[in-house]
């Protein structure tokens, strides 16, 4: 295994389990909904408060990496609220608190999560999705990734489970490895946005495709072993030729 492939494998080993937690959270939310359905009850917001231990355990299992986790529900799913967000976030000291956002469509501060990519993509494809890096101005207020998975009940889409990871944490994870490669190397998102690079000319947040150096970079094969649907959509590109 080359150093490049090892670097990618290490990233999958650290971040992959967070995505597994998210799919677990989505399954748990689906089971809660299914239980209410079997009992002939309508779904209420309180039903999903029971997810708190699972969300907290996801946050505690990945301290300093997972900054927030929870579920949001599709409009029309609940009988007592048009929308609901049951999300918890961990501060720097590891203290976990529920996230409060304004879900009143009449309010000036209304937060419509159904317009976010991390909500729409799992809704559209039925598959997990890694959104970002993007500026999360609601929860973390930082440059963030959201790992998301659809919540389904009786074959119907009823919401999205997710976890937030700060872009800074991902950079910390890969930067020593990138710096040690000894040749230009860039990690990009599924959309081709730079997540981290070892070149001062290629800054995080910029679309790599528009960079003059992009044509010289070649993608490193990703590590095998994870099912395609839960593989991170990130690409490591390096400049071939000069050995690291």
């Amino acid at each position: 295994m080359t150093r490049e492939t090892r670097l990618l494998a290490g990233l999958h080993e650290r971040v992959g389990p967070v995505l597994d937690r998210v799919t677990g959270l989505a399954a748990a939310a689906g089971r809660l909904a299914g239980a209410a359905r079997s009992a002939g009850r309508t779904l209420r917001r309180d039903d999903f408060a029971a997810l708190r231990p699972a969300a907290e355990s996801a946050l505690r299992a990945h301290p300093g990496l997972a900054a927030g986790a929870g579920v949001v529900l599709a409009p029309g799913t609940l009988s007592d609220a048009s929308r609901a967000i049951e999300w918890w976030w961990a501060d720097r000291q590891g203290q976990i608190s529920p996230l409060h956002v304004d879900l009143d469509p009449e309010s000036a501060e209304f937060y419509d999560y159904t317009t976010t990519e991390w909500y729409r993509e799992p809704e559209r494809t039925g598959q997990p999705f890694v959104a970002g890096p993007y500026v999360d101005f609601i929860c973390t207020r930082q440059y963030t990734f959201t790992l998301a998975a659809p919540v389904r009940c009786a074959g119907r889409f009823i919401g999205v489970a997710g976890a937030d990871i700060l872009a800074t944490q991902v950079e910390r994870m890969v930067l020593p490895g990138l710096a040690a490669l000894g040749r230009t190397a860039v990690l990009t998102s599924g959309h081709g946005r730079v997540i981290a690079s070892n070149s001062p000319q290629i800054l995080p947040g910029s679309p790599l495709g528009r960079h003059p150096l992009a044509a010289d970079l070649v993608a490193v094969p990703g590590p095998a072993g994870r099912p395609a649907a839960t593989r991170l959509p990130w690409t490591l590109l390096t400049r071939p030729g000069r050995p690291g």
Partner: protein
Amino acid sequence: MASSALATVRARTLFAPLDEGGRAGTVARRLVQAITLGLLLDGERLPAESQLARQFGVSPVTLREALAMLRDMGLVQTRRGRQGGSFVRAPAGTQAAQVEAMLRLLSVHELRDIGDHRAAVAGAAARLAAQRALDGDIATLREHTGRLHAARSLTERRRADARVHIEIAAAGQSPRLTEEEMSLWSEVGDLVWLPVADGQAVAIAGEHDAIVAAIARRDAGQARALTEQHVLAETARLVDLRLRLAAG
């Protein structure tokens, strides 16, 4: 609901200590804004003066001065006696009047300075968005300019407008500029649509379309210039209204 409720979430945003040492006008503006946004409700009793002064980080004298300004505007009523205290007066349907009261608290030079600040932030954000936005970001921006066109009320327009500018800063991939836009909009956002007649709304929504079109063309210079012009035009409308209010 009284001071106990105010000690919680809203209190943290409403009564966060002020950076600038706290002048009476700033305190009054914060309270007017809270009333305008519906964070303080009609008939709600404000916390005791000493407690409010502490929460704002100003002297009791400054706080009393601020309350006097609100009383003059008819937004607060002070009752004496055992059941006394300062109570919010915000009858429904007077939102425009409240925003106007907020505008009266700002001097023309403050309005100009806020405009300069907003032009700097929004202009830089638009330039970065033109350099960094991906197709998906452009689609998001167009969706929100669409909502601005569809908006009808003051609240809807303010919300859609704020969202367009916040999304532009987010498309610029800058958490700091996004944060700055959010804080500017929460501070003065209510004012922006106050001097706009219904007939002007289409043209103003169109200015946002032109900015987003420049971002989509990756024309960073044009995106910035159009944004600065847009904010300066807003400032000019506010100054004009402020002067008319001064004339009585």
